[in-house]
């Protein structure tokens, strides 16, 4: 048996890193015990008790890092000391680098974070299911940001997860907030009593931010991926997510968000909601959920869940929104004065698919004339050429025709900015309707990138924006709103409010 050691000065690691390094050393062949500690008097006493104190450590101080290794085979000393050096230099790179340490595999990631219980997978779709299966086999929840995963793989993974009592969020799950941690495209919101299950990424972002901005908070926000509520998948994770929140002690109110689910999925969800002891608000865009709260927009759903969590009346929410409506009508009257000549149409340019859908559903009964969209909802007609607007047009810039080979429009504003300029130059455009989505993953430099284009557009047409985000987001909601207003845009607290204002503006125009 022999004990060897190393001393390092001027480098610091947190305790978990040191413990993991100690474990890694202890697990090496020929190593009986190992410790990596700061050289305090007390730590040296423990090293002595563990038989790891050597003369080399005698004159060390509190700020020295001591590495002691006990070997059962002295011939391996050189080899182990080399391994120690490699381990320290590797960890130093991780500790001091630019936060870009990227494990090359799931196993590699788990050596860095062995206690992780959720694996976020964002790799090419064809490999994603395999990695997800590995994570499930190891008893870990999965969030699949990846898309292009086959529906057969999705169903198989979700069945396995359900059997194991685990969640598979996704594929194509863009956002979730788990135990207060925003994942992928998500906003920084406070923790609270409202749990969300959503088959809609931007829908989840919108309601979680509205809840935060109304003073309440989120217990968990579970994304399922949009396909989960379709017939083939059968809402497996939407239902499991709902059950998890109904069982969760920290969740007092549940909010469900989705585009219209398959009829059988809707029936299954509604049956669970009907027997729930917790209040549930269901916002299925274009379909009715269980219960009598019946929100008409993501905003109303969010505010209703806040009211329920705060034991307030839903009538107060309805009455507040009604009052706000009157303000919007008055505001629209003023904005209408800006429109001249042939200006008569809304051009909605959305980075969030759910916002585009919600806009169509809100406006289809409000505005005169034909409505077109590249992702039509309700009675809206399909837009023949997504690059060119016709009459009232609603474009989801997150659809494939815009995103093949380029980043999502929440990240890369180039395409939308060009389209804003084009629409502003169109003599028939009265209102440009925009969603500005903040949070992790979204464009970090949006103030600079939007400022000029909004200023130019607002000189020619009415620009109405909603900002989905919070003041805790890295972009800071207040700063973004301030820039937009200074640039001449009208900023409203939700997509629904922005749509209503746009609708009121054009519905009163006489062209």
């Amino acid at each position, binding site marked *: 048996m022999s004990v060897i050691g190393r001393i390092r000065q001027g480098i610091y690691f*947190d305790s*978990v890193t040191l413990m993991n390094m100690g474990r890694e050393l202890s697990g090496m062949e020929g190593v009986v015990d190992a410790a990596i500690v700061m050289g305090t008097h*007390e730590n040296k006493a423990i*090293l002595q008790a563990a038989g790891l104190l050597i003369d080399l450590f005698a004159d060390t101080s509190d700020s020295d890092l001591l590495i002691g290794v006990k070997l059962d085979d002295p011939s391996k000393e050189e080899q182990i000391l080399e391994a120690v050096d490699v381990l320290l230099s590797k960890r130093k790179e991780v500790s001091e680098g630019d936060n870009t340490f990227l494990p090359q595999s799931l196993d590699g990631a788990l050596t860095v974070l062995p206690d992780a219980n959720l694996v976020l997978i964002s790799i090419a779709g064809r490999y994603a299911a395999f990695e997800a299966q590995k994570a499930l086999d190891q008893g870990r929840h999965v969030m699949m940001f990846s898309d292009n995963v086959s529906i057969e793989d999705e169903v198989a993974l979700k069945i396995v997860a359900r059997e194991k009592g685990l969640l598979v969020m996704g594929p194509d799950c863009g956002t979730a907030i788990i135990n*207060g941690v925003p994942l992928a495209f998500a906003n920084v919101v406070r923790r609270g009593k409202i749990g969300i299950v959503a088959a809609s990424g931007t829908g989840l972002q919108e309601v979680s931010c509205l809840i935060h901005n109304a003073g309440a908070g989120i217990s968990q926000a579970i994304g399922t991926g949009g396909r989960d509520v379709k017939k083939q998948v059968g809402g497996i994770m939407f239902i499991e997510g709902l059950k998890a929140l109904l069982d969760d002690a920290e969740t007092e109110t549940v909010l469900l968000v989705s585009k219209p689910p398959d009829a059988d999925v809707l029936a299954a969800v509604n049956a669970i909601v009907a027997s729930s002891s917790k209040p549930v608000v269901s916002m299925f865009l274009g379909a009715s959920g269980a219960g009598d709260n019946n929100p008409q927009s993501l905003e109303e759903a969010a505010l209703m869940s806040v009211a329920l969590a705060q034991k307030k009346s839903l009538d107060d929410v309805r009455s507040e929104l009604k009052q706000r409506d009157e303000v919007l009508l008055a505001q629209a009257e003023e904005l209408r004065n800006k429109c001249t000549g042939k200006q008569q149409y809304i051009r909605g340019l959305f980075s969030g698919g759910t916002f585009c859908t919600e806009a169509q559903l809100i406006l289809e009964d409000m505005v005169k004339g034909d409505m077109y969209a590249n992702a039509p909802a309700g009675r809206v007609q399909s837009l023949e050429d997504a690059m060119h607007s016709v009459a009232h047009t609603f474009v989801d810039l997150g659809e494939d025709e815009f995103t093949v080979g380029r980043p999502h429009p929440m990240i890369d504003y180039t395409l939308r900015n060009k389209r804003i300029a084009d629409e502003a130059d169109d003599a028939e455009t009265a209102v440009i309707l925009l969603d500005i989505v903040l949070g992790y993953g979204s464009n970090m430099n949006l103030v600079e990138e939007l400022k000029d284009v909004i200023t130019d557009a607002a000189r020619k047409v009415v620009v109405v924006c909603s900002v989905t985000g919070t003041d805790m987001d890295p972009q800071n909601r207040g700063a973004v709103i301030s820039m937009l207003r200074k640039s001449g845009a009208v900023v409203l607290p939700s997509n629904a409010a922005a749509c209503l204002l746009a609708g009121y503006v054009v519905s009163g125009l006489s062209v």
Partner: protein
Amino acid sequence: MMELLTIGDSIVDGAYEEHSRFEQVINYVNRDHLLSVVTASVGDGPVNIVVRPLPAGAGGVVVAGERVTVDGQVCEVTHEQVYRSLLDDTDWHTDILQKNLSRFCQVFKEEAHPASLAFLLDPKRISAFKPGFQQKLCEQISAGVTELFAGQVRPGVQKLKGCGLGLTPSGDDFIIGVLLGLNALELGLNEDYGAVMETIYCLARGGNLLSNALLTLARNGRFYHDQKQLVEALFGQSEARVAHAAQAILGHGETSGADTASGLYLTLHSAIFSRHRPFCAGGHL
């Protein structure tokens, strides 16, 4: 361009040099004084300067009155940006505190990092430590805690100080929690724990600059935001708030938050069960 969001109320004027750098925190020192430049996710603290984003360069920090220079960038501090680290007056209700401590303990057992001192509250967790050095470390800390709460303050603190892994060893973090707990008790009970705090403080100081600075802040009743939130929640009416505050403090550092919280918890707990005298025989459960 870096933006200064908030600044702690206990930063001493002077020129600070970089001491250590982590993902969300850069520690700077000026003789015995510490300040940390941190991101918003780390949050407010008595010697924290919260910025967005974290400066990339290795330049120092100069604090002169209301002007702070970080990495060459000058920021003027407004009154609203100052984080107040002292506790507000609080009421003591034994039954509420007892219930809240129990809720805290439950969250702590479920969510504290396995490498933290959570084994002091949940002995089953000791199996997460490997035989050999790690188990010896646990033994030493357990012995120190037992002695401290049995009234043997000197040997207790001496066993704990400087003991453990990390930049501020777990034993130091625990003692910091004890000092914070005593400050909270002073305020809640209107009793004077000044003498015992001073004893613990003097015994606990060693050669670790960061630990010393944090011990001084704790002795002076200066709380980091998540510590303050936890104490306020423990003395308040909402169990849910306790759970959230517990989760927040457990997320502080790798194990530091949990180690400090365990010292704070055991001090408050001990006070309830020993008629407000936390360090007397029988005071420790």
